[in-house]
């Protein structure tokens, strides 16, 4: 069996890849992909933890996370389309109406 430390290191690595992606990418689609990466790293953590802890609660949580991630992706992509129609671009640097 893979030691749990490996799983936690892998999921933390994925999570922070996602965080850096969100912080440094300027394309909204890339940001959405990074958010999905973060949520998937959480899934990995829950499944690994479920194996270590010895009950199935964590795996049930994963189903909820997958469902919610799908909802978020749907809303996010709808927003990307709406933004593209209004601003003509999906670059976050172009979104500068709200200031102060």
């Amino acid at each position, binding site marked *: 069996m893979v030691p749990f430390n490996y799983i936690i290191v892998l999921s933390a690595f994925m999570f922070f890849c996602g965080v850096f992606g969100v912080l440094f990418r300027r394309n909204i689609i890339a940001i959405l992909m990074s958010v999905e990466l973060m949520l998937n790293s959480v899934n990995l953590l829950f499944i690994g933890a479920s194996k270590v802890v010895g009950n199935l609660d964590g795996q049930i949580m994963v189903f909820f996370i997958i469902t*919610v991630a799908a909802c978020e992706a749907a*809303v996010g992509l709808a*927003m990307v389309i709406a933004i593209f129609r209004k601003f003509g671009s999906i670059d976050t640097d172009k979104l500068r109406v709200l200031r102060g």
Partner: protein
Amino acid sequence: MNIPLPTIGSEFYSAVFPILVLCLASIISLLQGVSKGFRSPAALLFTLLVGLIAALVYQTGGYFLGGAYISDMLSIYGKSLMISASIVLVLFVYFSTLREKFFRGEVVTLFLMVLSGFLMLISSTDLISVFVGLELSSIGLYSLVGYINPNQRSQEGALKYFILGSISAAFLLYGMGLLYFTTGTLGIDQIFGQISQIYNGPNWLYFLSGLIMFGIGLTFKMALAPFHMWTPDAYEGAPTALTAFMATAAKTAIILLIFRVISFTPALTLETWQPFFSVLAIATIVIGNIFALVQTSIKRILAYSSIAHSGYLAIGLAAAATTSNTAFPYDAILFYLIAYTIMSIAVFGVLIWLEEDAGINLNLMDIHGLAKKHPFAALSIAVCMLSFAGIPPTVGFMSKFFLFKAALDAHLYSLVIVGILGSAVSLYYYLRIVVNMYMRDPTGQRETSPGGGSKITAFVVGILVVLIIALGTVLPGPLLNKMADYSKPLMINKG
């Protein structure tokens, strides 16, 4: 009113009745939206009000989902407050120019879903139901911010809210994952009941980082300082009625959830929470009040003021986490939430009313000389501003007084000093609004006189203003005593 709770293990569908009835109303309004005869705003308002009033009136205690959902006095307090606030806001919207835009099937559906998400959140004692409630409310809010009144401003606000909200949800989830790994359970009571065994053990580092990430997720939703960036943009972009809803309901829901977490922490290790909330409180009060000074848009000022008020609430949380044997900090926070909800709804109600003719997003120039053109609106705003700033004899003063007293009882002197200095700074931007209304001549670029058809808005705002004064002069004692009933479940968990 005191509800006896049945033992865990028995399921009561009546306990989830408010959520079920709101979900039912949301499905009905979705169907109404595609029907031929029932899609008028009046028909949707009818469904909405019937659902809200049924959920408000019929509330019983009990458990559901094997104890993951609990309806006790605390959640009944939260439900009553949020549903009453929603009823008032829905009425405001119905009598404004936003009527056609808000009373569409899908918007009403999303609104009811958001509300049921908040109700789920304050009743949950399990991480799964916390997560579902939080996402149900957040995803609905992201969509509503950009959808009700689509323009560049609202869609930019919605996108920023969405991106930062998803990151915070991911942080919250990662924290939950670590908490689950160290404790082997998803029940909030079991997780936080185990702190003393885990403390300084081999898994303490994992537990602590899990706790911090979980905390980051929650403080983001409550708009505490380092995680407040989304608030001004989302508040300014959203239609005003929705801004009021976000400012009041979201704050109430998260505070009550944090109450539950704190109440399940054993008294010995409770003080681990105190530095966390103290740092956040100081940062939030400083940042909220200072950034509010330089704003010109009224909604942005109110957004930063809402951040500052989250900071004052965090002072109360720090006090609640320090003194484990008294319910007074909880009572003070519950009182503060009622006061803040009344003030916010009153001031946003007047803004909805004024914006009717002025287009959107009033700034400080637009309200010049408002007192001459419409004395009642100006007076209502002035009372609310004084109450926000904490000037007697308003409810804002009493609520801050109780909160600071709770902090003094807990010997958190530095927090009280920061809080009082913050209130003093906040006087500048609150009084600036009053000065602009009363002491400047109308510049008359945009017309800000309330239009016709808004008698009911004026009437409701009038009631709220009377409440602000009454709760600040004669009624604060009885209301505070009433709060002791609602905070009782928290103390039972302690024992």
